[in-house]
């Protein structure tokens, strides 16, 4: 059956690598707050994104809890490259291409599990949990008839791997700075989620995957800082979960923060996002823990734990910090993504509470969720409308909150006052532009 999404794939306009830095800077005019729609539909630009963003950035690939034991693995994507994330017998997490070095067949067809060896279905080449080639049928013939045959050279192509407090990242760029530098002061904010409890965090089991016919940047920029859409887009979901629409928030007590293109918009209301899960026990849990979290992270970050907020870790990992939904938007073309979603919980939380988190997140932020359902419609239509040749020439407006920069004695990163603000989205596209202009 042909999917609607496939019809949205635009015709190639430019070959990869032919859009110059000068042209890109004209498309993304952040001083004027105008962005040309071409960055959402042009195939050449999309190919450049895969090469200059997804093949270079540190990309979130897994939570360590998903590959807790030696042999545990998941399969996922880095850009459009399929990868296996596997815990080796030495306890280290490895990330390598899910494509045989012999004829290129996909090696692992399961999305999760535990294996000592990954054996290709085609000719039986066999790789270990670090991606090394450890065996192949008729190996003696290879030894005899292939001059210089060396199994060590035929392992699966590996990515660099580093992690931050449970989140595993990988990059195919062998020369870029490490993860700590990539994240910078964003780590101080990530600790709100990852380090508010001494036991650390885990993902609930499983994940929900779905496809959307939209450009990957629309959901990424939305989570980066689009607090503005919430009250309007999600009114019906809020009525369902809270019994009333999204309340008017005090803009002067809310913030947008960005660092290195990573973004987080938040209030300090402590429970606003968590309340949308519809579980009183979760709100009680957060309230009970407030002083403990304050002792650990300080008062201001203790007010962020369940607060109304959204965030994108550049380029494609997003979460609602106060709500525990975690997701990645994998690019699959100019107007197609694969969405993977998970639920983050404190490891030490009671099992019954973890169940409530899992169900609450799924009920609101999964394809069937009362809040997410209206997002997909917006992003698909924002992508599809660019099929029109006149429509696609019109620029989009990103100029809200131009002069809202503030300094704060505690809050780190580049800070802007008011969460109704495009500053995080401009920061997202500034990082996009910097990477795209770098040959």
């Amino acid at each position: 059956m042909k999917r609607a999404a496939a019809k949205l794939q635009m015709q190639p306009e430019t070959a990869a690598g032919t859009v110059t830095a000068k042209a890109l800077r004209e498309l993304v005019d952040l001083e004027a707050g105008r962005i040309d729609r071409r960055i959402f539909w042009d195939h050449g630009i999309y190919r450049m994104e895969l090469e200059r963003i997804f093949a270079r950035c540190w990309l979130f690939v897994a939570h360590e809890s998903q590959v807790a034991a030696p042999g545990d693995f998941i399969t996922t994507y880095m850009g459009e490259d399929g990868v296996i994330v596997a815990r080796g017998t030495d306890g280290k997490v490895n990330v390598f291409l899910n494509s045989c070095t012999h004829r290129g067949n996909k090696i692992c067809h399961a999305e999760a599990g535990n294996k000592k060896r990954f054996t290709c279905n085609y000719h039986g080449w066999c790789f270990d949990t670090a991606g090394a080639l450890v065996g192949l049928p008729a190996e003696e013939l290879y030894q005899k008839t292939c001059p210089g045959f060396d199994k060590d050279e035929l392992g699966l192509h590996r990515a660099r791997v580093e992690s931050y407090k449970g989140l595993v990242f990988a990059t195919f760029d062998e020369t870029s700075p490490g993860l700590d530098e990539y994240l910078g002061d964003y780590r101080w904010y990530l600790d709100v989620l990852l380090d508010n409890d001494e036991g650390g965090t885990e993902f609930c089991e499983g994940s929900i995957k779905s496809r959307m016919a939209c450009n990957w940047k629309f959901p990424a920029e939305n989570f980066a800082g689009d607090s503005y859409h919430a009250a309007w887009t999600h009114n019906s979901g809020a009525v369902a979960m809270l019994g009333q629409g999204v309340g008017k928030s005090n803009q002067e007590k809310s913030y947008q923060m960005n660092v290195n293109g990573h973004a987080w918009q938040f209030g300090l209301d402590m429970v606003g996002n968590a309340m949308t899960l519809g579980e009183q026990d979760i709100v009680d849990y957060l309230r009970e823990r407030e002083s403990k979290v304050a002792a650990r992270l300080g008062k201001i970050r203790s007010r962020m734990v369940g607060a109304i907020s959204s965030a994108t870790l550049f380029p494609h990992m997003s979460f609602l910090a106060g709500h525990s939904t975690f997701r990645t938007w994998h690019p699959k073309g100019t107007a197609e993504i694969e969405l993977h979603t998970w639920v983050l919980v404190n490891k030490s939380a009671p099992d019954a509470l973890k169940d409530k988190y899992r169900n609450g997140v799924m009920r609101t932020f999964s394809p069937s969720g009362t809040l997410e359902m209206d997002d997909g419609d917006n992003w698909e239509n924002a992508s599809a409308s660019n099929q029109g040749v006149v429509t696609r020439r019109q620029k989009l407006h990103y100029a809200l909150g131009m002069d809202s920069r503030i300094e704060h004695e505690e809050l780190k990163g580049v800070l802007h006052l008011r969460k109704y603000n495009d500053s995080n989205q401009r920061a997202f596209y500034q990082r996009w532009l910097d990477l795209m202009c770098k040959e």
Partner: protein
Amino acid sequence: MALVLGDNPALKKPLPPQPSPLPPMQLVFEVQQFLYREARLLDEERYQEWLGLMTGDIHYWMPGIQARYRKDKTPRLDPKRMALFDDDMLNMRRRVTRFLDATAWAEDPPTRSCHTISNVEVELTPRDDEFKVYSTFINCRGRGETEEYWLTGRRTDLLRRAGDGTLRLASREIVMTQSVLLAKNLNVFL
């Protein structure tokens, strides 16, 4: 030695059918009519009447589907894994509340949904008032101009006869064929 082609010890043998008691035809008819009517209520967006077909202790479950190897010892469907629906009556009412809200933008213009229900099998249980019912569904959703989403799968229901003599849905397990949902949302009950 030359292989003799034909029957060989590796070939699997047919198994004789296992006889099972036939449920009364009247009951099967009643269950079918219940399921068809339920499907029509959904297609006509009569969600409150649809909720009225459920028991107060309804469990409505649609697990996420994972592609895992056959050797994998973990259950194929695990209540601990993430699910598209894992709801009691309160949460079903929340979902219905969103569908019926005037600001549910993704429902306006309305999504056009058609549920086709088939392969209905009724099994008697140790309780006189409860029946296990298997069925399959094909659901097609049309939205806007040309959007079209197909979803198919199997359902296992528990139907319970209420005090007034009518059937109610007490639990439903929905197993779809897609592991990556090929749609931007699942704005439909199945």
